């Protein structure tokens, strides 16, 4: 979904960006002042505003107020009836954080879980990832990075409720306790959180709070039904695509057949004649391209209008990628020397008793989220409101402001529930929101003053760009009869995802994009030489779900199986031996899957075979044992049974 990046690397790497922006002395900031800051310091700080906050409060310890990410008012609202609404600082798109984060907060708040609701946030600075300092749903970081944050938020609100009750009853707060959404006094008096909330939230927010001993957790760690289960089982859940303002129009875009191409000639007379079509607009698109937006009452009319366009495209200035030529080029590159990620000492391959050579080709992959990309924009002279499923509300809002000629503080981006995303709802160019803003802007200049939702068709989603890059792996491995690897010479060829993004300077080192190679070698103690080539092709690429692991896990695990088979060893035993005593989680995960499956004990019927794999990605170790159907020595699509385990 997003590169496996250590947040600890960020501040150092960002020093000089920060320096450039720090022409103004920043005071410790009250909540909601981020937008002003980003406006004066520009985009770089806008993307990592929290770092500015951190640095400035270090510089000015006297004004040691809480950071925006620590302010309860941005995250918790308690209604008079006791309902607790928790605002989450991420996009919910199926991973369940709209339930998990409220659970964490409710735990320390001692809330009544039945009264807990949740909602998504905005591009407000309060909703940045507290460690990265930018709005980000990715990298499997939500719980990891916001666990303590949401506990502290809950604990702060609880302390404020206790203080409010103490004042109301004129007793010491220390004599009071809380339970399931109420404050209780030692004499049996009781006040629901709803009755105390108004007074409590007006109190100063405590700096220091104590957190529960985990042994008293009663919500965290309990299997809990998703808060959105009812709505999502009845058509009642509103997704970004369902958001509708009065008078809202729908736009679809005719995109060029080659990325970055422009319009040569346009005849839109038939399109304009389609009933319901309100405007046909030439708009700038991602990668310097040009497209035609058709704006209409609804999607059907807009797409009918688009079908009726007569466009000739000028593709003369852009590279036209040809799959066959590209593959031949990648094959040739794989034989060349290049920068090395690993450069182990190894014996010459020729001297190894046994050898194998393998090539793997992975195609470009679209994210293909179930809910097509969409973005609704309402423009006024001095302001824009945006509704979209965004994994990165801050950068998206900043990019929208730039496209619209507005200041960042004039843009509000309301994060919408999304039908999947897999990384596509955070692109380094913010292409979806920028395109929607260009359309809204062009419509407004053409006199069309209506909120506009830009909607991608499924075909747009497949053809319109941003893919997991195509990769070619080439491996030559030498090993002995016991399966001990003596030399592993490996090349990967694939476009860099992070080059040209804000992550380049700390994720691309010596010409190697860490997102390409993650998942290679580790945890196996192999002598490996890994050469990496990043060709430049005119295809927009992006992180896709587990990023590098989408190809490296397959390659590593397949090759280990090949070695095990060539040396007549059991694939589980072979891996266990490689893990040794070093990689306990890998061992345990594999053992768990083996135990669940009956691998090695159950005799499979004719035409069936076992498959095993173990991989670590984003701090989780996952093992699989599968029972697959085999025909003519090849596995058939689909598994007969799967035993996964995660540690």
């Amino acid at each position, binding site marked *: 979904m997003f590169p496996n990046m250590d947040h600890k690397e960020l501040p150092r790497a960002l020093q000089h960006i920060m320096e450039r922006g720090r022409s103004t002395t920043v005071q410790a900031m009250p909540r909601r002042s981020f937008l002003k800051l980003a406006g004066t310091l520009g985009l770089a700080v806008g993307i990592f505003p929290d770092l500015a906050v951190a640095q400035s409060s270090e510089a000015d310890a006297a004004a040691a107020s809480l950071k925006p990410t620590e302010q309860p008012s941005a995250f918790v609202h308690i209604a008079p009836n006791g309902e607790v609404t928790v605002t989450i600082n991420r996009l919910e798109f*199926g991973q369940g954080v709209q339930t998990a984060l409220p659970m964490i907060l409710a735990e320390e708040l001692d809330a009544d879980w039945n009264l807990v609701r949740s909602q998504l946030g905005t591009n407000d600075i309060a909703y940045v990832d507290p460690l990265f300092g930018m709005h980000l749903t990715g990298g499997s970081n939500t719980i990891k990075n916001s666990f303590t944050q949401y506990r502290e938020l809950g604990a702060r609100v609880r302390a404020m409720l206790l203080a409010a009750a103490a004042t109301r009853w004129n007793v010491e707060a220390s004599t009071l306790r809380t339970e399931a959404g109420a404050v209780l006094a030692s004499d049996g008096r009781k006040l629901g959180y709803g009755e105390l909330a108004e007074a409590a939230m007006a109190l100063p927010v405590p700096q220091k709070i104590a957190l529960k001993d985990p042994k008293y957790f009663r919500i965290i760690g309990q299997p809990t039904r998703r808060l959105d289960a009812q709505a999502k089982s009845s*058509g009642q859940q509103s997704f970004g*695509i369902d958001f*509708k303002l009065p008078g809202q129009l729908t736009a679809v875009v005719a995109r060029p057949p080659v990325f970055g191409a422009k319009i040569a000639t346009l005849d839109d007379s038939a399109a304009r004649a389609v009933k319901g079509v309100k405007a046909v607009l030439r708009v700038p698109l991602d990668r310097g391209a040009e497209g035609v937006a058709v704006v209409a009452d609804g*999607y*059907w009319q807009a797409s009918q209008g688009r079908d009726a366009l007569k466009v000739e495209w000028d593709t003369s200035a852009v590279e036209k990628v040809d799959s066959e030529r590209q593959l031949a080029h990648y094959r040739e590159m794989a034989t060349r020397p290049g920068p090395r990620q690993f450069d182990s000492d190894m014996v010459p391959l020729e001297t190894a008793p046994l050898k194998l050579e393998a090539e793997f080709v992975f195609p470009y992959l679209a994210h293909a989220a179930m809910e097509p990309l969409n973005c609704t924009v309402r423009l006024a002279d001095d302001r824009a409101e945006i509704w979209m499923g965004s994994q990165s509300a801050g950068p998206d809002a900043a990019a929208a402001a730039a496209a619209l000629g507005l200041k960042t503080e004039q843009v509000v981006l309301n994060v919408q529930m999304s*039908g999947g995303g897999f990384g596509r709802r955070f692109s380094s160019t913010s292409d979806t929101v920028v395109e929607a803003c260009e359309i809204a802007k062009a419509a407004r200049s053409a006199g069309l003053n209506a909120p506009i939702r830009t909607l991608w068709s*499924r075909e747009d989603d497949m053809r319109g760009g941003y893919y997991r890059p195509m990769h070619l792996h080439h491996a030559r491995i030498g090993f002995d009869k016991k399966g001990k690897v003596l030399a592993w010479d490996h090349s990967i060829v694939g476009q860099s995802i992070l080059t040209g993004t804000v992550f380049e300077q700390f994720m691309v080192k010596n010409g190697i994009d860490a997102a390409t190679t993650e998942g290679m070698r580790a945890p196996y103690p192999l002598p490996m030489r890994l050469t990496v080539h990043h060709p430049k092709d005119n295809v927009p690429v992006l992180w896709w779900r587990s990023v590098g692991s989408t190809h490296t896990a397959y390659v590593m695990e397949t090759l280990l199986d090949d070695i095990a088979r060539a040396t007549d060893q059991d694939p589980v035993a072979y891996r266990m031996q490689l893990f040794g005593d070093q990689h306990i989680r890998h061992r345990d995960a594999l053992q768990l899957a083996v135990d669940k499956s009956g691998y090695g004990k159950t005799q499979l019927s004719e035409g069936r075979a076992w498959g095993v794999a173990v991989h670590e990605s984003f701090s989780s170790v996952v093992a699989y044992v599968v029972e697959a159907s085999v025909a003519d020595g090849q596995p058939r699509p689909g598994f007969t049974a799967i035993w996964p385990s995660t540690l």
Partner: protein
Amino acid sequence: MISLNINGREHEVDVDPETPILWVLRDTLGMSGTKFGCGAALCGACTVHLDGEAIRSCSTPVSAVESGKITTIEKTTDGTDRVGAAVHAAWVRHDVAQCGYCQSGQIMSATALLASLSPGAQPTAEEIDSAMAGNICRCGTYARIRAAIADAASTLV
């Protein structure tokens, strides 16, 4: 003007007769429970019932359903339909939905299957598989979908 019977109510809509019902539901009538996934009868997100049978609303023009009765997720899960209520309850019980975007369509295919069985009959695994074959879930909730259907059927005995 085209007359439509949707969820037991008559509607008059002024649209091109070729307009797929999906867009009449979503854009003209503001009923957003039925989802757009592909627009090409490939994913099942837009599934509704026409006279009790599951159809792909993205690829069925309104002109083709004028004489029929359309039922959408909003009606099927509002508690008034016995099969729909059982399916809805099983979906919640099994916490089926992840992103949830495909689930309106899944539930409509599942209810069409269960409503088509003779009273008390339990669907076989093959019947469930074939009824659900046209519904894609990008989150991969298939195992829970199948379990929830079997569970819902067992509560309908």
